[in-house]
């Protein structure tokens, strides 16, 4: 109940909902120019769509973390004055991001399906998206509660997310940039976001089944992130009214 109302609140404040669609589109245009035309890192069919699928996943991930981190402090007056489940605050932030993410992804998917057709593997999409949501929610709980105690978390996140973006298989696949098996495996498996991007792109852009290890990785990472984030949040939330 509280959750729904908080969501309403945040959605209401996101009046310029168009911006959520425009921003990734502009980003995609810029990256297409950079990596598709100027540098030519990768050759893929329908490259803008290839790019876009990865990009919306990334934008959801990074924007959720960046906006969840300071969320508890922003709502400090509420936390000091009222008793309610504190996790609704980061959860509301992530949910708002998820709604816009789904809207943009739906547009991309419709265009992709129209141009490239639909594969049977698309039935996996709900599972992958649910896992992505759980993964992002878990990490956002972690980011928000740790930031309330240690104000360095948000700047560290901002600093880490930029190189992380370039190391994630958004505008390339690991195959495109390296022939070294070790480096490729590292790009594919050491970056927890990579399997999400790869598998979601497989089912929407590629029309193929993602590999079983990738799907298992995605589900396991989601469960781990959510369980870990929720557990830490519960341990640290008691003193929130004092620290925010």
């Amino acid at each position: 109940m509280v959750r729904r109302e908080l969501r309403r609140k945040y959605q209401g404040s996101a009046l310029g909902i168009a911006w959520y669609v425009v921003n990734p589109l502009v980003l995609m245009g810029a990256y297409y120019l950079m990596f598709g035309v100027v540098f030519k890192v990768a050759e893929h069919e329908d490259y803008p769509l290839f790019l876009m699928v990865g990009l919306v996943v990334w934008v959801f991930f990074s924007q959720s973390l960046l906006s969840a981190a300071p969320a508890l402090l922003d709502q400090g007056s509420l936390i000091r004055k009222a008793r309610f489940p504190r996790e609704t605050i980061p959860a509301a932030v992530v949910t708002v991001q998820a709604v816009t993410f789904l809207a943009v992804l739906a547009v991309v998917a419709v265009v992709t399906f129209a141009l490239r057709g639909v594969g049977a593997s698309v039935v996996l999409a709900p599972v992958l998206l649910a896992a992505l949501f759980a993964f992002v929610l878990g990490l956002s709980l972690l980011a928000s509660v740790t930031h309330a105690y240690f104000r360095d978390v948000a700047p560290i996140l901002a600093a880490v997310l930029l190189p992380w973006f370039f190391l994630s298989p958004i505008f390339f696949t690991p195959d495109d940039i390296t022939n070294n098996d070790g480096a490729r495996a590292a790009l594919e498996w050491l970056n927890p976001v990579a399997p999400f991007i790869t598998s979601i792109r497989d089912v929407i852009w590629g029309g193929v089944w993602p590999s079983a290890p990738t799907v298992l990785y995605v589900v396991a990472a989601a469960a781990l992130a959510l369980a870990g984030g929720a557990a830490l949040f519960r341990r640290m939330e008691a003193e929130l009214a004092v620290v925010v």
Partner: protein
Amino acid sequence: MRPGEIALDCASRAFDIRGDRGRTLKELLLGRRHAGGPPPVQALNDVTLRIEPGETVGIVGRNGAGKSSTLRALAGIVPLDSGRAECGGRVVTLLELGAGFGRDFDGRENILLNGALHGMTRAEIEDRMDAIVAFSELGEFIEVPVKTYSSGMFVRLGFAIAAHIPADVMLIDEVLAVGDEAFQRKCEQRIAERVQDGVTLVLVSHDAALVERTCERVVVLDGGAVAFDGPAADGMAHYHEMMGTVTA
């Protein structure tokens, strides 16, 4: 625990009052702590208090005597270092009116939002909507975003919502001085009605006359400990004596 019953058992709570309370990650990693600065303040020091359902209790004391800390501990907003704080049934806290209002939303939306924060279901809020709107005397202003409200309108809406939330226990911190005189009287009357209905009331206030009017029992806090606990008239006498403001 019966609804409306309140128990504080040997409750203690200290607050760290360093201005720079942000422990940074670096300090944590290096295992370093701030040295110096004022020592923690013992806001509550072994406070034991039992309040029966339907009682009306005023908490008075100097600034910093632990009044607000007592309420926040009872409300479960701030955990105790040791001891136990429990309230039976539904608890409504009025620590700050209008906390959690969305400034871009109109009055009705904020009633829904605020009600939800207090754990009411949508149907429960809808049932009380008209009563809340009427009580707030906002008239057509209920349709415009609260950021356009005057501060008086803002707190009137906040009080109207809180006053209509079903509760077994009401914890009120110095927020009855709301609006003009007529509205203040109305607030007091509303509180009295709720007390008639059997709500347990805990009121923190510096307004001696208000405490004497609304409370049958008074707890005087001093330095985080109970200095007096008893009938309102005796309690207020003790309070005035302690403060050196005896008149007569």
